[in-house]
């Protein structure tokens, strides 16, 4: 057990899983650190450093050195083709891990993910499986505006056939990525870009965290707060503030939106009678409103107050630091939401 960053926990998982299973290959832009040709008719091989980048987020650094060019493949900027290829390779017996640099680029490879990966197993009568992991980054905070900052986990969740994991800490990242890679369905693995530097103790040996089993981050009898990814930390901060005012919160991190551990959420709301959902995705047609609807359906009798969703507004993500901070939910907004339903 050593303290590790979220980034290193992910790299260690890739390293260990690739060592365990020779059918795991990595595909993505710059994942091999920025490959070069052997030289073309227009010129000789360039002389720069191999594996200079180690992936756009530095996550895959060193893997090409360990596992070679046949297993760590730099791709041209062709998400539709290389994610399609990863799907074809998965169906043909490999276990690819591919990187979609920003989840926002779902726009250019949506067809492959939604119409190929998600449907392959079911539509062909269960003949093949698609053991594919698509690592992608989500979340605001880097001041990089609307095309690189979205949280699109709810969009992926819409499509039956996809699994969606949202690790909220380094420990979670290692355990969930191990499960994602070993799972026989396509998994969208959403790494929050503001968590890469978060550190905590992470076991050196591999371990897996089952999908669809929520983590209880805090226990309290007054309010249930459900939160995903980085919002788990925002919710926890809020719960600590509220504790000082005598309000005890249960904070639940469901870890995956597909499958979703509705049992744990329903049971908790049954006990507390109050629910706040905190999510960084947009407010419309999202996981927060989805959970809200399910709870209203299933445990309406237990509710003592209206369900509250704390999400960004129905707006785009601006680059200006003050505006972006206003956009993303923070602890103060969660505290206000909880206080708003405590009197009821």
């Amino acid at each position, binding site marked *: 057990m050593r303290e590790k960053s979220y980034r290193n926990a992910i790299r260690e998982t890739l390293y260990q899983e690739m060592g365990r299973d020779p059918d795991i290959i990595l595909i993505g832009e710059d994942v091999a650190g920025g490959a070069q040709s052997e030289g073309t008719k227009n010129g000789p091989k360039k002389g720069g450093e191999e594996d200079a980048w180690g992936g756009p987020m530095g996550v895959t650094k060193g893997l090409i050195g360990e596992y070679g060019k046949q297993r760590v493949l730099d791709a041209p900027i062709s998400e539709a083709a*290389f994610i399609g*290829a990863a799907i074809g390779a998965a169906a043909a017996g490999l276990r690819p891990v591919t990187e979609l640099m920003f989840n926002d680029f779902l726009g250019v490879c949506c067809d492959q993910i939604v119409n190929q990966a998600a449907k392959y197993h079911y539509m*062909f009568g269960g003949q093949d499986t698609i053991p594919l992991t698509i690592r992608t980054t989500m979340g605001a905070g880097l001041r990089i505006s609307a095309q690189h900052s979205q949280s699109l986990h709810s969009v992926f969740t819409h499509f039956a056939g996809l699994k969606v994991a949202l690790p909220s800490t380094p420990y979670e990242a290692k355990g969930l990525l191990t499960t994602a890679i070993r799972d026989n*369905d396509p998994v969208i693995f959403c790494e929050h870009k503001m968590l890469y530097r978060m550190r905590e103790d992470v076991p050196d040996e591999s371990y897996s965290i*089952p999908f669809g089993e929520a983590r209880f981050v805090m226990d309290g009898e007054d309010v249930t707060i459900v939160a995903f990814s980085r919002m788990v930390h925002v919710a926890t901060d809020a719960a600590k503030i509220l504790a000082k005012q005598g309000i005890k919160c249960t904070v639940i991190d469901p870890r995956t939106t597909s499958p979703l551990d509705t049992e744990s959420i329903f049971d908790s709301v049954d006990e507390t009678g109050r629910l706040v959902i905190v999510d960084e995705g947009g407010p419309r047609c999202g996981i927060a409103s989805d959970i809200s609807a399910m709870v209203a359906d299933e445990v309406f009798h237990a509710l003592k107050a209206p369900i509250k969703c704390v999400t960004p507004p129905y707006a785009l993500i601006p680059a200006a630091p003050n505006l972006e901070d206003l956009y993303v939910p923070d602890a103060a907004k969660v505290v206000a939401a909880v206080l708003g339903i405590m009197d009821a």
Partner: protein
Amino acid sequence: MNNNQSQLLWAYRTMQTIRMFEERMHEVFTTGEVPGFVHLYAGQEACAVGVCANLADVDYFHITHRAHGPAIARGADVTAVALEIYCRADGLCRGRGGSAHLHDAAKKIIGANSGVGSGAALACGSALATRHRGDGGIAVALVGEGGANQGVVSEALNLASVWKLPVVFVFENNGYAEATSADYAIAGGNLSARASGFAMPEAIVDGSDYFAVSASFAKAAERARAGGGPSFLEVRNLRMFGHYEGDAQKYRPPGEVADYRENKDCLKLFRAKVTSENWLDAAELDTIDQDVAKLIDAAYETARNAPLPDPEELMHSVFATEC
């Protein structure tokens, strides 16, 4: 290519099976007993059969929405194909895919094809997998000339070339994408001119000539197997029916199909060639025609009378790993 007798008999039988299967589908579709859309392959048989004549068990064959012919060419069970088109429980895909999503994993007939063009990308993945295993396999992506205009196809051509994958891209130019003609939708009118931009060899092949397709494909396949990378084949043919059944085909010039049936029917041309060269005799071919007619009768009879999937199938295998 192997032009021995058994190979020729196989080619004729397979092309005739596809032809009769499609002629029958054309007839029965009007009764309303077949669910969904069907896209018939009649007129194009020599393409899929010429390709499949050169495939080994380790090879992957990615097919399109015009799926019946290519699936049969690659050896899918004709009854299982009919059952799937009728969406029956025992169809190739348990009735979930229907006509345009035939898929037979055991035969490496890879569907996922109704988003036109996507097969080109998936084939890059099959090729990666066979290369990874080192089993000497190749992947073939069949793509219509209309599907060739998808962005993903250009991406896949480049990717295959960059990664030097063992893929053969077979663009089947049957002149139309739905109602839109190829000479309108392909800038410059020459699809295979695109190959040079992706640094791969190309060939234009007369799709009514089984021998030409087979020879041209064999060369591309050999190159792929030897590690030489991808190739680009444009096979020119016409479909004998509409885009789908029910298409009035007013976008076609009068007489186009009649002329094609008269002068460019791959089955007629094949028969004329093998008999005039004395490779096979006509009586043998007549026997095949009779056998195939019986097979088609039986397949349709079985499909028509078979049960639809159980209601519980709706929720079955949404995921492979249950959580």
